[in-house]
């Protein structure tokens, strides 16, 4: 187990380093330059040159990269070009917001879709099964900017039940913030429900047909014990892996949702930093999502190993 952990960690660091190089390289290909992005297209070339010099973006690329990475590994992500303030607090606040939105969506979608998937499997072939599968599939294929707008129009504009903005007003407290996150998390729930429910259904159907389940039933165990101790434990293993891989999307891939619901998450932060060629903010943003994603998949792997002795012992050999 510890060898697995070490191997995974080493791989994660290598991945993050390659990511930082790729993002830096890609950032250079983007048109324009940071000072031009700040001062706008109509600013004088002299003013742009002065600002680029002040920001240090007129230095050779390797110098810029080295300057940034050497500070980053010491815990200093540098100063944002556009905001002329340390990038750290921007990243921390945006990442915190994204984690909160992701957590709210997770807390709603995971129990809901697991229940839906297992319920469908237990009624396989019947109307309930077909309804859950069909609804899940339909919801998954609707892009979140479409479902987001429909949800805003219905619950925010017409019924006025829920606030449209994901950002709670000042002094609203944590409860108010959670309330403001209900509507923005709905499109995510819709996208993920069908996916996770289908995995849970497939796993459960397979586990229900497995020989160990038949043995458990034949030896007279109560139905509830069969379900919880034998079926679900095996059925949910692939589902856990799937949930783990969705974390990256939930944390860094929600640009559309964040813009639509006016929420300062890490997705929007990265997107705007890329547009402004705000390299320190862009790099730090992408790497934080990378770190969260790596951690999530690591946790999912470890959880998988913990639940599945075959993986655990295979790795320990």
């Amino acid at each position, binding site marked *: 187990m510890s060898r697995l952990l070490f191997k995974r960690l080493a791989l994660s660091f290598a991945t993050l380093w390659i990511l930082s190089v790729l993002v830096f390289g890609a950032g250079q290909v*983007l*048109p*324009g*330059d940071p*000072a*031009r*992005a*700040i*001062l*706008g*297209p*109509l*600013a*004088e*070339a*002299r*003013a*742009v040159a*002065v*600002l680029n010099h*002040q920001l240090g973006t007129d230095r050779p690329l390797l110098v810029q990269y080295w300057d940034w990475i050497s500070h980053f590994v010491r815990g200093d992500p540098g100063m944002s*070009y*556009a*905001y*002329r*303030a340390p990038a750290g607090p*921007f990243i921390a606040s*945006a990442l915190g917001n994204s984690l909160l939105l992701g957590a709210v969506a997770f807390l709603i979608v995971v129990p809901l879709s697991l229940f839906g998937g297992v319920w469908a499997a237990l009624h396989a072939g019947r109307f309930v099964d077909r309804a859950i599968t069909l609804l899940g599939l339909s919801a998954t294929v609707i892009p979140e900017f479409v479902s987001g*707008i429909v949800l*805003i*129009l219905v619950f*925010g*504009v017409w019924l*006025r039940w829920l*606030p*449209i*903005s994901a*950002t709670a007003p*000042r002094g609203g407290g944590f409860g108010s913030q959670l309330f403001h996150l209900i509507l923005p998390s709905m499109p995510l729930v819709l996208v993920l429900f069908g996916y996770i429910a289908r995995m849970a259904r497939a796993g459960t159907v397979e586990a229900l047909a497995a020989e160990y389940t038949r043995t458990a039933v034949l030896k007279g165990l109560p139905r509830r014990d069969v379900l919880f101790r034998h079926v679900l434990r095996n059925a949910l293993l692939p589902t856990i892996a799937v949930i783990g891989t969705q974390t990256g999307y939930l944390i860094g891939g929600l640009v559309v949702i*964040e*813009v*639509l*619901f*006016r929420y*300062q998450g890490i997705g*929007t*932060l990265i997107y*705007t930093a890329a*547009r*402004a060629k*705000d390299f320190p903010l862009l790099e730090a943003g992408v790497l934080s999502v990378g770190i969260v994603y790596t951690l999530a998949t690591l946790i999912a792997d470890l959880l998988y190993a913990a639940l599945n002795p075959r993986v655990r012992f295979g790795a320990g050999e």
Partner: protein
Amino acid sequence: MSKDRKRLDAVRRDVGVLENDLFDELLSGCIGRRDFMRHGSVLGLSLPLLGGIAGAVFGPTLSPRRAMAAGTPGATIRIGIGQPAGAIDPVTIADNGGLVLLEPTGEFLCRTGPDLVLQPQLAESWRPNTDGSVWTFKLRQDVTFQNGRKMTADDVIASIDRMADPKNSANALSAFKGILQKGNSRKIDDHTVEFHLDAPNGNFPYVLSTDNYNLVILPADYAGDYEKTFIGTGPFKLEKFTPKVGASFVRNPNYWGKPALPERLEYSFFGDQQSQVLALQGGDVDVLQQVAFKGAQALFNDPNIDVMSIKSVSHQQVHMRTDMAPFQDKRVRRALALTLDRKKLVAGLFNGRASIGNDTPFAALFPSSDPTVPQREQNLAEAKQLLEAAGVGKGFDVKLTTERYMEIPDYAVLLQNFAKAVGINIALNVEDQNAYYGKAVFGQSDWLDSVLGITDYGHRGVPNVFLSAPLTSDGTWNSAHFKNPTYDKLVAQYIASPDLGGQRAIAGQIQRLLLDETPLIVGYFFDELVPMRKGLAGIPPIANRLFMEGAHFT
């Protein structure tokens, strides 16, 4: 009338030649009330005086200022604006979201009011010398910054020098180019400043007005860190600013002028227009800074929302490279311009909320525009003849490069369809704004290098900027690569001309020259749209600006 005439005669004895020319134009019927008010304000005549004279000639009217003065104070007004692109600093900020945030706490020497009339703000009056090369501004004496310090000529000079200094990365540097250099603003006394211009300029006060978006007056010792204080002299003071989220301001109790009506202003930043529109419909905000017609149509049918439609000179310029095929022949350029059905453009792109353009930056809204210049209409037969004469009667293929911004991509498609009728096949290349502007210098910018392109130009109180950088031979935004010495000379004369009659005579020549040469197609000038919750009133209809001090709920 005889009493009024006597009073007018008395006024005429006290003013200079330029002012008397203006009065002559008024009395002879050459200009109307709006033009008289507007140009009189440029010459530094006070608005009450101008109003009195105009009232004597045309009969009284209610000024927009007085109309908005009444209202219940104490409201909190929530405003949705675009996400500022970077740190808020009056020296560097360039985008609409950032610039609108300067307005609650910052003030200008004068501001462009509705109908482009200049209103005094921190300057109480101004006056040119006889040729318009030196302008003297008298400052208000009762103005204090929010930190309690008095505003003096030193602050004004420092604010302007900061922007005009090439050593600073100032966004307004381009606005001062060829007009006023650092060090040429001189203090006469604590409340009088003299500006010695590079060349005579009849509309110079506009350069120091809200037209020069960044030029709020800051304390002389301002050294950055604007976001901590939002220091200025305005009717509000900063309560809280949170980067990327929003800002709130409260009424400034020590404001020199009439206290603001709202108790608080809450600005929320939005990433795109759609989310702003939905937030307004859902009641999360009370007013939006400004929206493009495209994507805001739902607001016009919402019974809870009013949309203020403000006439503006904002437009999209279609440039044609005059120095390379296929547009090096002016007949080809004219042919493309003749394919446009401008009424259809205005109807299709804006549902009528725009005015037809005549391929020059002279919008009818500018008092100096010559209304006798014939309007270019769609004429496919003439277009075909011109192409024939230019040797491209069978048509040709050309690429149109432009930016993804407002209605421009739709405009490009309409142009493509219009041009097809005479055999011009336009291939579209619609880019992200960053890609289109590129490095914004010749050779490294699709905007400046493309053979055919469309570029957005925002509202200005006078056409000087539109006439110079995009069209003069040495213009830094001259994407048409138009080089015409006669034009350059006319523009220099126009800019120097201190009286409206003279400006209009030169404007007519410029308009005719541009129609003949057609380096640009200006199909329309669109209205600026400010949507707000029903019952919100007191926001003056000023294009590109959102002054909130008179806002209240009825």
